[in-house]
């Protein structure tokens, strides 16, 4: 919980510094998964992109830090019911510190995952409200919960992965860590308005707003306020 905001601010900066050396999305995602291993003390981590509508079809494993991650991903896709899909569908982390005692939740997945060597799974959705991009899942060969500090790092790394995938999918410059998750309420409202006005997805709408802000050297919040007040309307030429 709230045991020292300053500590977490330091963690954010610490992780940001460690990721600063990467300058493209693929390397950044690799770096994020590897940082899960060193900073969150899990055995491995993987990033999976998922389509907004089809759980099993529209997706791809982007990177896995180890072989067990590849195996778990394969299992999840094969069975179709797994923690990573739940995290994506429910829009929240799915934390399974004791996988063996959770056998009823994901029939067909759990037993094979345990046999493969996983004892704990921590799945984090990569999304900004209705902008749903994928999942970052960490696995550990020993059972037990994440500590508070590990959870904070895991959430910050998931934020970074969200930004990275969003930017990569849409081909724009990389944001700083937590850029998307920290944006103001007005930006989310404007995203909804632009999605309806332009008949595009929420992800596309957010991209258009960011593109406009970037092109006109203005902040996201300024642009969003003008959209909400109907003083600015983005059109197809943007």
């Amino acid at each position, binding site marked *: *919980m709230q045991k020292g905001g300053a500590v977490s601010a330091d963690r954010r900066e610490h992780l940001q510094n460690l990721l600063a050396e990467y300058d493209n999305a693929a390397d950044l995602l690799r770096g994020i998964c590897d940082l899960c291993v060193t900073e969150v003390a899990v055995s491995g981590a993987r990033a999976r992109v998922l389509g907004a509508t089809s759980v099993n079809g529209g997706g791809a494993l982007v990177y896995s830090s180890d072989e067990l991650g590849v195996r778990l991903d394969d299992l999840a896709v094969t069975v179709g019911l797994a923690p990573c899909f739940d995290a994506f569908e429910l829009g929240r982390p799915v934390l399974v510190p004791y996988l063996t005692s959770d056998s009823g939740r994901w029939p067909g997945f759990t037993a094979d995952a345990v046999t493969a060597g996983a004892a704990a799974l921590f799945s984090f959705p990569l*999304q*900004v*409200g209705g902008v749903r991009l994928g999942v970052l899942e960490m696995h550990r060969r020993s059972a037990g919960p994440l500590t508070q500090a590990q*959870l904070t790092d895991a*959430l910050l790394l998931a*934020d970074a992965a969200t930004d990275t995938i969003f930017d990569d999918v849409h081909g724009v410059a990389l944001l700083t860590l937590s850029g998307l998750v920290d944006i103001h309420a007005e930006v989310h*409202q*404007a995203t909804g308005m*632009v999605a309806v006005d332009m008949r595009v997805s929420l992800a596309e709408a957010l991209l258009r707003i960011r593109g406009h802000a970037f092109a006109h050297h203005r902040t996201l919040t300024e642009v969003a306020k003008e959209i909400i007040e109907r003083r600015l309307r983005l059109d197809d030429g943007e």
Partner: protein
Amino acid sequence: MEREPRATPRSSDTARPVDSGDESGATAPREQRIGRAFVNLADTMVDDFDLAEFLHMLVDHCVDLLDVDAAGVLLSDQRGGLRMAAASSEKSELLEVFAAETAGGPCVECVRTGEVVASADLTADADRWPRYAAAAEACGFRAVHALPMRLRRDVIGALSLLNGEPDGMPVESSQLGQALADVATIGILQQRSIDHAVVLTEQLQTALNSRVIFEQAKGMLAAHSGTMTPEEVFAALRGYARSHHHRLSDLARQVIDGTADVEAITAHGAS
């Protein structure tokens, strides 16, 4: 899958907001309403428990029972920051968002210390929280009581009680407010408490994501209506959810999925 991501009718009467206009509403004697509030807030052991919805109920109870103009909740984002999670009105929502984003003010201090932080007159206390006091005044508030939502060492957020006039809030009101915050916190932390740290994380992060979905849905409805502001949509969405017994977060998700009756929702605001 634990929860069907569709708006479903409420399964029990106890989950309904206090001012839904039925016989259990604001016309009942106060003692009875207080009793009902505690029963509602203790009823967290349901399969489809939804923290965002639960906190909306908490702030509604506060406004109904505590002689305050508005109430709001800030929650820990588990990344070292706070987020606005529920507010009884648009003005209190603006103020809570401001406090969360600037990381300042009585509610933020309350979370940091785990103690009650109050100002009976923010104008007089302006040197202590200059930015917050100015924002509060702009939103029409002069007094605030921030009550910690804590259980033992865990502080998960703060409940802010707001008044438009400088006040000496009656001790009884402050105590009842803390009691409501306590029972809500215990309810949240013990909710299906096999592993309360896991449940708490899942609940907190769901509530934070629900807020984003809610804002996006507001924008979509505003655009559909052609003229409504997101603030007007806020009222329409809540009104529609109540009269149709939908959970607000489910309804917002339907809106962004394109499966909600947007005409009916925006029409609800016009009536």
